[in-house]
């Protein structure tokens, strides 16, 4: 019962799109998302077909007896969806969270990794 109430409340919460950096390296795509307030238990990363969804839940940290004087940021959940191409190895995506930043390592599939071809001089 309590669970349903909680879920119902959550539906009305605002959802924010976290700011994201994406870096392409030789073997991986790295994704960094600013999600202050989440830890490894409250963040979900899911891959369904070619859709990568990152979702974070925030629990209020402020005591009810305080009144808000001014507010520059809102509190809500985080969500953002990305589409992945076949060039990413979807089974080996790794995720870590530290200081409110989610880091994803998305490995490139073997076939598209840049290959360096040695040029040998003719004798």
């Amino acid at each position, binding site marked *: 019962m309590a669970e349903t109430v909680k879920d119902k409340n959550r539906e009305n919460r605002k959802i924010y799109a976290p700011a994201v950096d994406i870096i392409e390296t030789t073997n991986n795509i790295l994704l*960094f998302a600013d999600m*202050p307030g989440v830890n490894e238990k409250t963040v979900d990363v899911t891959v369904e077909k070619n859709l990568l969804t990152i979702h974070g839940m925030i629990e209020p940290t402020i005591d009810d007896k305080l*009144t808000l004087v001014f507010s*520059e940021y809102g509190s809500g959940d985080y969500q953002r*969806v*990305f589409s992945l*191409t076949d060039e990413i190895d979807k089974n080996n995506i790794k995720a870590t969270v530290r200081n*409110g930043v989610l880091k994803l390592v998305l490995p490139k599939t073997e076939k598209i990794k840049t290959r360096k071809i040695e040029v040998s001089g003719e004798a």
Partner: protein
Amino acid sequence: MLIRELERLENLLQPWREFEYINREVFRTLSPVQVEFPLVNLWKNEDKVVVTTEMPGVESEGVEINVTGKTITLRFERKPEELKDGEAYTRRERRYGEFKRTIELPFNVQSDKVEAKFSKGILYIELPRAEAEKPRKITVKSE
């Protein structure tokens, strides 16, 4: 691009998100001054004021807090990822650099009793109100 965003498509299904997106983009493009960073929320009751701020990716040792009378100053640095040869940003939305913010508090605080904690990228600072300024209840004696 190996990774493409579906945010815009999603937004069409949620009108207020689309509005927020437009709002943010317009602000970003037109505003000559960058939007304040970090963003701050301020809470209070009779005895104390609480300042919370979002600083993801910052180490707690790198945050400097100064309190004098009625103002609090936060100073910190957020470093970008170091790129090696052959690595490149394909999307860059997060802000980097040295930041400083000064906030006016609603009353004087006891600067020696300020407590700050940093967890999950959120800084939480509790500043007790100066004793002399606390509201006092005066009991009326009958003659």
